[in-house]
């Protein structure tokens, strides 16, 4: 069997992982870019999404039920995002934001453990997308292929909204210079609330969509948070394209990289991140609008 045949499935799977990582991480990146808030409760938002999947989607759920659950997850995420925006709005210092949002994350973790128990839970894919199809002569889960499609659609929508609409222009301007946007009479608080809401909604939605792949369990929140941080920092904070590139890179490192260098698997992720950051401290594709992302 040729190298390509042997590894193509890993490459494909890398895209599926990248799709999930992108959905979860892009909100973290936008919130940092616009609000200058490093939200360490971002992973908890995703875990809440996953547990919503546990509660709402059972084994033979129809696609409709799954979509409804996804919409509900997004709505819950938006509400939680707004709450987080309100909590962090008065706090400018990154370290105190970290203290606050990590505190929230610790509380959320224990609340979720009370509600759903500490056993790992499986989130079912909708019946229509369960099972596998043959890709290159090997079975591949249909659900993972659908996740890629969903991520592409959401990514395109985000891109169009940010680059081609008035609202997007305001968000971009806020990334570049918050003071200036206020000066021209736009209440940046509203923009920030909106961005935090959307970012959090994407995180919960991503969490729910990731459910059938990653499951739902205590501790998944910090795993996801770390991965999302790696994705956005590698990609470049505050940029949608950066988050996408970061997700693609991390996805491939975790599948193709692991498959090529199995002995070094444990070191690949952080090794890759350290390397990228030492060569390009602002990430691979820093936001063209963002101020220097370096300050704490």
């Amino acid at each position, binding site marked *: 069997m040729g190298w390509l045949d042997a590894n193509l499935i890993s490459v494909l799977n890398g895209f599926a992982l990248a799709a999930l990582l992108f959905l979860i991480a892009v909100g973290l990146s936008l919130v940092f870019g616009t609000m200058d808030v490093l939200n360490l409760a971002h992973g908890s938002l995703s875990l809440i999404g996953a547990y919503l999947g546990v509660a709402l989607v059972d084994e033979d759920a129809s696609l409709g039920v799954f979509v409804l659950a996804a919409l509900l997850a997004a709505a819950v995420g938006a509400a939680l995002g707004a709450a987080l925006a309100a909590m962090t709005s008065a706090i400018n210092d990154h370290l105190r934001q970290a*203290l*606050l949002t990590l505190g929230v994350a610790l509380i959320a*973790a224990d609340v979720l453990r009370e509600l759903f128990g500490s056993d790992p839970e499986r989130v079912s894919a909708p019946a229509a997308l369960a099972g596998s199809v043959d890709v290159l002569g090997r079975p591949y889960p249909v659900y993972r292929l659908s996740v890629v499609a969903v991520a592409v659609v959401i990514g395109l929508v985000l891109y169009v909204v940010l680059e081609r609409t008035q609202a997007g222009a305001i968000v971009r301007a806020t990334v570049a210079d918050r003071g200036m946007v206020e000066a021209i009479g736009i209440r940046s608080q509203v923009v920030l609330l909106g961005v935090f809401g959307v970012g959090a909604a994407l995180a919960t939605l991503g969490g729910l969509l990731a459910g059938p792949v990653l499951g739902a369990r205590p501790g998944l929140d910090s795993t996801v948070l770390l991965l999302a941080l790696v994705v956005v920092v590698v990609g470049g904070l505050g940029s949608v394209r950066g988050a996408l590139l970061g997700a693609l890179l991390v996805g491939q490192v975790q599948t193709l990289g692991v498959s090529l260098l199995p002995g070094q698997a444990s070191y690949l992720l952080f*090794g890759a991140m*350290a390397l990228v950051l030492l060569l390009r401290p602002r990430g691979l594709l820093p936001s063209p609008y963002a101020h220097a992302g370096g300050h*704490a």
Partner: protein
Amino acid sequence: MRRALAPGLVGAVVVVLVALPLFLTPYPISLVTRILAFGLLVVSVDLLTGVTGLPSLGQIAYFGVGAYTAGMVGVHVTDNLVVQLAAGVALAALFALVTGAFVVRTSGIVFLMVTLAVGELTHRLADGLDAVGGSNGLAGIPPGTVLPGGEPLLIAGFVYWWVLAVFLLGMAVALVVSRSPLGRAMRGVREAEGRLPALGQRTYAVKLAAFVVAGAVAGAAGTAWTAQNRFVSPGDLAFSVSAIALLSVVLGGAGTLWGPLLGAAVVIVVRDELAAYVAGYGELLLGILFVVAVYALPRGIAGSRLRRVPSVRPA
């Protein structure tokens, strides 16, 4: 500005600390021992984060090098704690020099993430290296002695005194450095990194020097940890420990050295002691503590006598 704590007060605190084993039973004394070792790690994080303005999630790596070195020296070479301390500090400082040469080229969030990577890679290395016990940790470390051929320290109070000595030494180094020209330059980096070159000062040198000093202090903390537990495991190097250490700094009041120390004490007492009364909810308590602290203690436990400076963004 930051005036020295009154010498009399420092003296009184030291006397109380030295006298503790006379009236505390073994368990509380082991708790204070743990607070001192962890506190010294937190002080090293504060040297970078609070004093130099470089938020670090990686001091656990140098703590780990110190802890594992002390353990390996204990198992294979000598049970002498002074030798273990010297070896641990030397290797930790060396490791800090080698890694710092790359790491200190960054700052801000990127520094945070690069140090996180260093910490995690060290953690995984400890987990994978069978020579240091792998994921089961390094066990079988003999009780240490202070003088060559002396009695091994088995009793909690004596172990405490050794850890206290290491702690006071580390704390003295941190205080001395923070009051030296280097300390002033470190605060200069924190306040306006871009301004120093115009004064003819390379910030790289300042940051690297700070990084090595902080690494050495973290290494000392690691040897103290090993002296107490006589066991090191990769779990001691986990990301969560780094995060808690960094947040102890914020909780205590970054840049003050003694504030973060109190932060560390509060965190350990809340997570390990109060949590014993509500088993399994230690992290919940910690979370509540963090959230409340952000609003109730906007400048950390240490407070701050400075007027709040409006944060100025670099243009």
